[in-house]
């Protein structure tokens, strides 16, 4: 029963795209219904961002414990209690998921458990767990159906139980002795980092010539060296040809340098990408434009069908939680009568490696590709007091500055707290700051942010704590 004058809004999917869109729509006076087939929080809270970071946090603690003697703190590392690691993961996840549930109530959002599909352009059929179906009509519909792990057509992957996707790798029954990771993207690299710290022998196989395609190449190469120095075996330009059982282990046949080599591991993580989870939606039947399940939208997050919006992973473009949420706010605002555009210029990319890795704006590679004139400012964290204290000064900050106007085109950070340091840099990109704006800002001592300013100074050949070439 529609309330007098209220716009009714349906949200399909309760991930960080959908639940944020729902809250924003409710704030703007919409009467909001959110339909979720599985768990509130979506991929992100249940099997994505959050659980990986909990594992990484425990893994980091273990790594720190092993290094404490040189800080004068004597500890004996007795081992990992894997069931407790898993319990911690569940506790954090559950707390956040029930937090989302509380936010739904606080914002008077109706949550329906079920699978939504389009019956017509403005009507959804919701199929509940018990098989019952209900048809519901809305003024506005926001699709936030997200994505699921893609299964590559590699012979043997489906047949071998030791081959898992990211969800499986978050819940291993025990820390595996060895793990082969297919795919050197963010998910593969983060899980490789976590398990390597837990003591697993890790091998990463990437088909392309470089890990982490969206990140700055120079810093990615530095990270790769650090990972290799910690014992992670990394192969690029290497194609997995097939997987087969080999006793209790699994054999992975990899084509690298023209030859096929066999690698054996207890577990195989398949992390070659994700596909949109849009099959159930019935997109084609109602004429919602999409490219093999990837929904097409404009900057207002509108699909080609009036009053239907789509956001987040189901667009099949930038698959990041904060992008889904940002797009969710935009879609909700437009659905409730505002007129706003999504602008991804300030979107940071973060990788929770050791040390952390983050970037925003253009990489050097991208600036070259676009033919934009630029200069580079670099500062090694070895010359930053706080980084020296925190991790021995490992890492680097790199600015990409426009040649003519000196605007901040991009910033790339490999180092402690990089994922939070990138906040300042994203604001700089968003505000069209120039290198002078960064320089004019006092950066506190002793912090890693000082190195952000130093890298900006370096672009002007006036860094203080390193000689300028």
């Amino acid at each position, binding site marked *: 029963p529609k309330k007098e004058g209220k716009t009714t809004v349906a949200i399909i999917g309760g991930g960080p795209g959908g639940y944020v869109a729902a809250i924003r729509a409710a704030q703007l006076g919409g009467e909001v219904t959110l339909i979720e087939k599985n768990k509130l929080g979506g991929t992100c809270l249940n099997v994505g961002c959050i659980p990986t970071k909990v594992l990484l946090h425990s893994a980091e603690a273990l790594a720190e414990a092993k290094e404490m003697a040189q800080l004068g703190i004597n500890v004996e590392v007795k081992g990992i209690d894997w069931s407790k690691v898993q319990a911690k993961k569940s506790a954090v996840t559950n707390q956040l998921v029930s937090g989302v549930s509380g936010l739904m109530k606080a914002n008077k959002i109706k949550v329906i458990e079920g699978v939504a599909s389009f019956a017509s352009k403005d009507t959804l059929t919701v199929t509940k767990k018990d098989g019952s179906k209900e048809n519901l009509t809305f003024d506005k519909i926001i699709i936030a159906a997200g994505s699921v792990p893609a299964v590559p057509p590699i012979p043997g992957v489906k047949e071998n139980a030791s081959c898992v996707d990211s969800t499986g790798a978050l819940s291993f029954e025990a820390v595996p002795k060895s793990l082969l990771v297919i795919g050197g993207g963010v998910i593969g690299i983060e899980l490789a980092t976590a398990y390597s710290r837990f003591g697993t022998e890790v091998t990463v196989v990437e088909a392309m010539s470089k890990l982490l395609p969206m990140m700055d190449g120079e810093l990615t190469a530095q990270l790769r060296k650090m990972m290799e120095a910690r014992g992670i075996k990394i192969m690029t330009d290497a194609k997995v040809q097939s997987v087969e059982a080999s006793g209790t282990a699994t054999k992975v046949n990899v084509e690298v340098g023209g030859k096929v080599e066999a690698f054996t591991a207890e577990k195989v993580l398949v992390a070659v990408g994700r596909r949109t989870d849009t099959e159930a939606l019935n997109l084609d039947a109602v004429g919602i434009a999409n490219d093999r399940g990837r929904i097409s939208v404009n900057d207002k997050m509108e699909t080609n069908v009036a009053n239907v919006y789509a956001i987040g992973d189901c667009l099949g473009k930038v698959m990041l939680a904060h992008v889904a949420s940002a797009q969710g706010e935009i879609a909700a605002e437009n659905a409730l009568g505002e007129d706003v555009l999504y602008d991804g210029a300030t979107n940071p990319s973060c990788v929770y490696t050791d040390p952390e890795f983050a970037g925003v704006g253009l990489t050097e590679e991208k600036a070259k590709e676009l033919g934009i004139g630029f200069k580079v400012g670099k500062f090694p964290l070895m010359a930053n007091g706080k980084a020296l204290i925190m991790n021995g000064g490992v890492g680097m900050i790199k600015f990409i500055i426009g040649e003519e*106007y000196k*605007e901040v085109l991009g910033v790339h950070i490999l180092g402690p707290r990089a994922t939070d340091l990138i906040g300042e840099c994203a604001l700089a990109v968003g505000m*069209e*700051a*120039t290198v002078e*704006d960064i320089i004019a800002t006092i950066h506190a001592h002793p912090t890693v942010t000082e190195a952000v300013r130093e890298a900006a100074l370096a672009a002007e050949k006036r860094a203080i704590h390193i000689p300028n070439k």
Partner: protein
Amino acid sequence: AAPIVTANGRIKISPLARKTAAKMGVDYSSVKGSGPAGRIVQKDILAAAQNAPV
């Protein structure tokens, strides 16, 4: 169109837009900003330069 002013009475314009306007000779005191809360950003200056009578 009148630009938005800041708390200090200055026109709200990004540093990049200000430099671009100086370079291109665009008087931004009559440019409408399209950035957050009406801040003039570079593309507003580029558009103004394009539309300016030659």
